[in-house]
């Protein structure tokens, strides 16, 4: 019996027992079961385990339940003024209070403050090259900001994913400003200087043409400066190939959080994020140790033995495995940051001016761009590994990854992934 076939069928037994296989795959497993006593035993064990769980997993009757129910009832009573009234809730959604938008506002202020700071440093250090402003087009930055604002308010208070919520918005309010001050203090962002700069600019009131000219200059200069900065700051190049596996979906009821609770939650998040960063600095350990799925899974796979390969093929395989690991490490790093909402706001504060300005002008997140590039690199690495290796586990993982990208509606690498699948004979 072919060992690879056996291992393949063994891994299908779980889905077979759950009735989750396609008819053709099911028939293949059944055929294999006729000839393989080991797989028959495994299947029997899985079935026994399912029966055991049905029998043994139910929790016992206890006075605990009544106590817990009473506690929940009390909590509902205490929260009574804040809940249930659907009409009030709907009205509230239409007119989200400032505290509900506080994180987005805070991010906007950070963003604008940071850009201004960078503008000022650039203006001090560099000689600007004048460019011709457009006579007919409105200022691109203003246009982008307006578009973002429309998007944000169109959902009638729907909470945005944090990566969307941290896009620039023109409106600022005092509470949002407070949050920003706390953040900047924590992270050493010199917001105060930025505010002074901004105030100065507001007073002088730059014309539309000046704004365009300035933005274009900033991009040119920021592009030159990014090379130097990339090592010192959280670089947008540390992109993720895929989203965090467990993407928390904040459900609708989340919105009923009262003001103080919301602020307290923000404070906890900030503290957690700082703690994590401090621990990371202190330990100096590999970020892969506690990063999400993608990296741990990719790196948990033992390197396959490249049996039956020529020397050149072996070298190629080694190269692609190393490349995959390196890209996975990059992906994992950014994924870890993605897990913490406040981390994303802070990362924005650390991002180079180029990133912010380009986002405003093009509406495209530089982060997204580099994520796509990393994903494209991983795709190629997996494709090459699948071609070269005879290890079925590696092949399955590779194909799973490529399939995931091929079915991801948001991925710009979907077409490439499909082509790879086609070339691998998988459709």
């Amino acid at each position, binding site marked *: 019996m072919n060992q690879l076939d056996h291992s393949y069928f063994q891994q299908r037994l779980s889905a077979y027992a759950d009735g989750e296989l396609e008819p053709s795959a099911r028939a293949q497993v059944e055929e294999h079961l006729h000839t393989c006593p080991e797989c028959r035993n495994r299947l029997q064990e899985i079935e026994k385990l399912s029966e055991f769980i049905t029998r043994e997993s139910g*929790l016992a009757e206890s006075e605990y339940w009544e106590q817990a129910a009473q506690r929940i009832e009390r909590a509902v009573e205490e929260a009574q003024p804040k809940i249930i009234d659907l009409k009030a809730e709907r009205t509230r959604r239409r007119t989200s209070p400032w505290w509900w938008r506080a994180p987005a506002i805070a991010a906007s202020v950070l963003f604008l403050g940071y850009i201004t700071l960078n503008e000022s440093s650039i203006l001090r250090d560099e000689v600007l090259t004048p460019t011709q402003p457009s006579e007919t087009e409105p200022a691109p930055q203003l246009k982008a900001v307006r578009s973002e604002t429309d998007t944000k308010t169109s959902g009638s208070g729907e909470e945005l994913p944090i990566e969307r919520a941290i896009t620039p918005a023109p409106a600022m309010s005092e509470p949002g400003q407070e949050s920003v001050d706390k953040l900047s203090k924590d992270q050493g962002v010199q917001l105060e200087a930025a505010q002074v700069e901004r105030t100065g600019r507001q007073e002088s009131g730059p014309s539309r043409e000046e704004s365009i000219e300035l933005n274009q200059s900033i991009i040119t200069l920021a592009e030159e400066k990014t090379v130097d900065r990339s090592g010192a700051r959280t670089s947008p190049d540390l992109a993720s190939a895929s989203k965090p596996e467990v993407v928390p979906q904040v459900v609708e009821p989340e919105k009923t959080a009262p003001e103080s609770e919301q602020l307290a939650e923000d404070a906890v998040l900030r503290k957690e994020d700082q703690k994590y960063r401090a621990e990371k600095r202190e330990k100096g350990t590999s970020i892969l140790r506690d990063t999400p799925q993608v990296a741990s899974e990719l790196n948990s796979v033992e390197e396959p033995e490249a049996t039956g390969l020529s020397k050149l093929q072996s070298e190629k395989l080694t190269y692609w495995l190393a490349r995959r690991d390196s890209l996975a490490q990059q992906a994992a790093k950014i994924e870890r940051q993605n897990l913490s909402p406040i981390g994303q706001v802070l990362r924005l504060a650390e991002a180079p001016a180029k990133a912010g300005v380009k986002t405003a002008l093009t509406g495209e997140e530089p982060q997204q761009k580099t994520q796509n590039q990393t994903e494209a690199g991983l795709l190629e690495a997996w494709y090459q590994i699948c071609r070269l290796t005879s290890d079925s586990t590696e092949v399955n993982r590779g194909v799973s990854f490529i399939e995931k990208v091929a079915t991801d509606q948001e991925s710009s690498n979907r077409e490439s992934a499909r082509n790879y699948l086609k070339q691998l004979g998988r459709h």
Partner: protein
Amino acid sequence: MNERSREEKESAAVDRAEDRTDEQALVQAVLAGDRQAFGQLVRRHQKRLFRFVYGLLGDFDQAEDIVQEAFLKACGALGSFETERDFYPWLSTIARNLAFNLMAREGRKESLDQIHERGFDPPSGDLGPLEQLIIGESQQRFYTALKALPEQYRTVFVLRHFEEMSYEDISAQLKIPPGTVDSRLYRARQLLVTALKDLL
């Protein structure tokens, strides 16, 4: 035998339909301001919900908090609940998202490398406050082994066994390919079979 089985199924279907009607009435009553009706909803679902959330988190206190929070949020958003649907799946979705938010904030996924290095050896220690809800050694060992599973495996396992979700739904929920759901479930089961072999 078949006839009896058919009758049992029909009887169960009738029970479910009655339950659902009861539940719709309870939800309507809560919306009309009847707090006691909400208490009934809590008592009806808290045990199952707790088992599920505990299964995901493996921590009694956190599970307790999430269950309470889920009921609170459900109460607050009950107006948006479509009463013709079952209440538990909706409630469970709220709890699941709260639990996932917590897990993501804590970023506490155990590296699978560690499992490969040291093998799977559930500790024999006590389960803390969960002890009061457990009867017998089999159950004790099951929950100890479940708690010791790597989080990535345990999540898939719990969604399948406690919430009876299909591979497709788990895949969509966790944003992982169905093939990964399959392989994780297989590995979770293998680890549990190893730990509980003498009880099966």
